[in-house]
């Protein structure tokens, strides 16, 4: 039988829960209201993630409601993206206990794996998480275990200015100069032609904005330029390594073509674009500086909702452009496609939360991840501009009213949700690299891409060097072990 004191505490907790739910800030699930016992009063949970606003601002937003529910404080530590992996893995490797929870990249799980808690059974016993609603489950898995809680969904998509695409006068000039109509680009050739046409800035806007900065997530933008040239639909592993023998594919003709486009596009962006990181890409697009943009799902939401934006109600979203021919790494030949190849690219794989084995209070750390990933709190985050968290649950797509309430205008909203949903649910979506040492492969790629973009090296030469570096890294880490991890990441069995 429930004691009076316990009854009063429950009632108080339900009151807090109801208030929080009313403000849209926290859990709607009765199971989670049980957290509101304040049994962790006085405790502090240390969370590390990248410097904000993206992701860090979501952690900040979670601190107050989480404290109301559990009594525990959240101490946020941040590092620039380029240093986050270094800081966290150094702490793990040296046996440190500086952080209880790490919100990091899904692609780093291969390195984090020995040092983090297996969440599988906790998640399966937690009805408040509504696990079947989570699309990105796979991105938190390693070797069949759920070692991370997905808190973000990630696609790289293409964004375009609808107002410019619909401008009849510009359309006439464009048709005359480029020989095809001005429209949202379907192919990379069309994409590059639009970038070229607007590249000199004479129409008051530049052609394209992408990230090129070393340490500024440039790896994923470069790969966006390659993905359609390198991936035969349904064929696994065409972007990074041959899954039969782990031979790097990064210097094949598909990559060379992608790298040439990526390097050329630098000429058509705002001045100094070689030093843009992902944050700057979003801000420049929101300031109306480019007709086309490549980015994760953050660019449109910032462009639509941020104060002072110049592109509200003018942003179209679509899958990355496609190609009519693809480099088939198995045959070693270009393959002509009967229909346009326009693969979905799940770049980065989403931010996810891991709990250190050395965490001061593992159950509390799990409660935090459960809270951040809960349907109600996550919906609030994905509909906020610049939280850095993008849809990763089916309910995020289905709850259109939440987006409208946040101020996202139609028809942009319809295009945005449709593009993300198409990408997330594509059975042939290209998965990101997930194997030990991923951060090193990404870093070397960013250096190579900058060398080409700044004219220090040709695409072929830089990519040949890069392939050698990737191969050396795999040899140092152990070929057999790396091959096994890579095949597992593609859901392929062991090699014979």
């Amino acid at each position, binding site marked *: 039988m429930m004691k009076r004191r316990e009854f009063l505490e429950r009632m108080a907790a339900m009151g807090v829960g109801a208030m929080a739910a009313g403000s849209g800030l926290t859990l709607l699930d009765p199971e989670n209201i049980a957290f509101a016992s304040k049994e962790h009063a006085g405790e502090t949970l240390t969370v590390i993630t990248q410097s904000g606003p993206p992701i860090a601002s979501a952690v900040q937003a979670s601190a107050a409601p989480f404290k109301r529910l559990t009594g525990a404080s959240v101490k946020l530590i941040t590092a620039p993206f380029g240093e986050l992996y270094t800081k966290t*893995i150094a702490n793990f490797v040296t046996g440190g206990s500086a952080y209880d929870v790490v919100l990091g990249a899904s692609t780093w799980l291969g390195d984090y794996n020995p040092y983090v808690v297996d969440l599988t059974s906790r998640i399966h016993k937690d009805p408040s998480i509504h696990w079947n609603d989570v699309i990105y489950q796979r991105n938190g898995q390693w070797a069949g275990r759920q070692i991370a809680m997905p808190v973000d969904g990630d696609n790289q998509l293409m964004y375009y200015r609808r107002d410019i695409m619909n401008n009849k006068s510009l359309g006439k000039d464009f048709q005359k100069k480029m020989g095809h109509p001005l429209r949202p680009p379907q192919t990379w050739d069309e994409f590059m032609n639009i970038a070229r046409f607007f590249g000199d800035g004479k129409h008051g806007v530049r052609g394209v904005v992408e990230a090129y900065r070393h340490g500024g997530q440039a790896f994923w933008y470069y790969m966006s330029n390659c993905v359609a040239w390198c991936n035969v639909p349904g064929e696994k592993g065409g972007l990074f390594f041959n899954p039969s023998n782990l031979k790097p594919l990064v210097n094949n003709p598909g990559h060379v073509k992608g790298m040439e486009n990526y390097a050329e596009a630098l000429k058509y962006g705002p001045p100094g674009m070689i030093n843009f990181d992902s944050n700057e890409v979003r801000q420049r697009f929101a300031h109306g500086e480019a007709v086309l943009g490549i980015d994760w799902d953050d660019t449109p939401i910032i462009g639509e909702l941020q104060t002072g934006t110049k592109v509200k109600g003018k942003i179209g979203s679509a899958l990355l452009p496609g190609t009519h021919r693809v480099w088939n790494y198995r045959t070693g030949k270009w393959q002509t496609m009967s229909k346009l190849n326009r693969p979905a690219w799940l770049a980065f794989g989403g931010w996810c939360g891991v709990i250190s084995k050395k965490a001061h209070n593992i159950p509390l750390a799990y409660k935090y991840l459960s809270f951040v990933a809960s349907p109600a709190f996550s919906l609030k985050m994905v509909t906020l501009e610049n939280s850095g968290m993008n849809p990763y649950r089916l309910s995020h797509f289905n709850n259109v009213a939440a987006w409208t309430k946040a101020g996202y205008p139609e028809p942009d909203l319809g295009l945005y949700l449709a593009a993300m949903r198409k990408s997330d649910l594509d059975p042939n979506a290209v998965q990101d690299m997930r194997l030990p040492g991923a*951060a090193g492969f990404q870093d070397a790629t960013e250096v190579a891409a900058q060398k080409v973009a*700044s*004219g220090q090296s040709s695409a072929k030469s830089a990519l040949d060097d890069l392939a050698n570096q990737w191969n050396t*890294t795999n040899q140092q880490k152990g070929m057999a072990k790396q091959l096994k991890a890579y095949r597992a990441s593609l859901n392929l069995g062991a090699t014979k």
Partner: protein
Amino acid sequence: MSFSNVSTDNGLTFGAATLDNWRTLLNDSSFWDSLKFTILFVIIAVTLEYFIGFGLALLLWRPIRFGGFFRVLFSIPMMLAPVAIGFMFRMIYDQSNGPVDGTLQRIGLGQPPWLAQPHWAVASVIIMDIWEWTPLLFLLLLAGLQALPEDALEAAQLDGASGFRVITSIIFPILAPISVMVVFLRMVDAFTVFGQIFLLTGGGPGTATTSTTLFAFFQGFQNFNVSYGATIALALLVIVTAIALAYLATARFLMRRIEA
């Protein structure tokens, strides 16, 4: 650590003794590129810092109006944190919103690609270093100037020597020992440049401004190739020691010739 293969796959574990890291280093063109950039950076930056510092010290050596104010003003850059300097220059060099390009464009001189092209990026890094460290040389040389024997200068003036002649024949030789010391200190320090470049260019574009310390950092702490990072750091120590010894020997030889 450099003679072992350290794995970070499951905590820190040391492999058997090996010379593999050193063999890799000798054949690693990226290492040699970083060393070439570092040496070029040290030579140009320290030389310019010395002459600008010397010039400023000469300007403020004799009592002038607001002399104290200018001494403090000129000393401020070296008191700032490297992180702040890196960020500040990143804003200054910004091609879209930076004050330098904005001004140059207004007067019709175009937009230099400060951080976008390799040669410009190298120049940008050197300019930043000169701004930060010239004050150190200025202060030390100023202290040297203030300790100059007045009688030698008065004698030269009575003999009708020109200002230029006084500087080259009297001040410069007398300041030679202190000059050797300040250049030595600054040179050794410049070989370890890290924070400012990391923030300003990240070693780019490509590897154009990757100093050897930055290269060691990338290998050791970004790729977690700890052994190789340690090898690069150790190699840099050996190289800097050799260069420093060669510099001191040359300076001693030249000073003996001046004295003779």
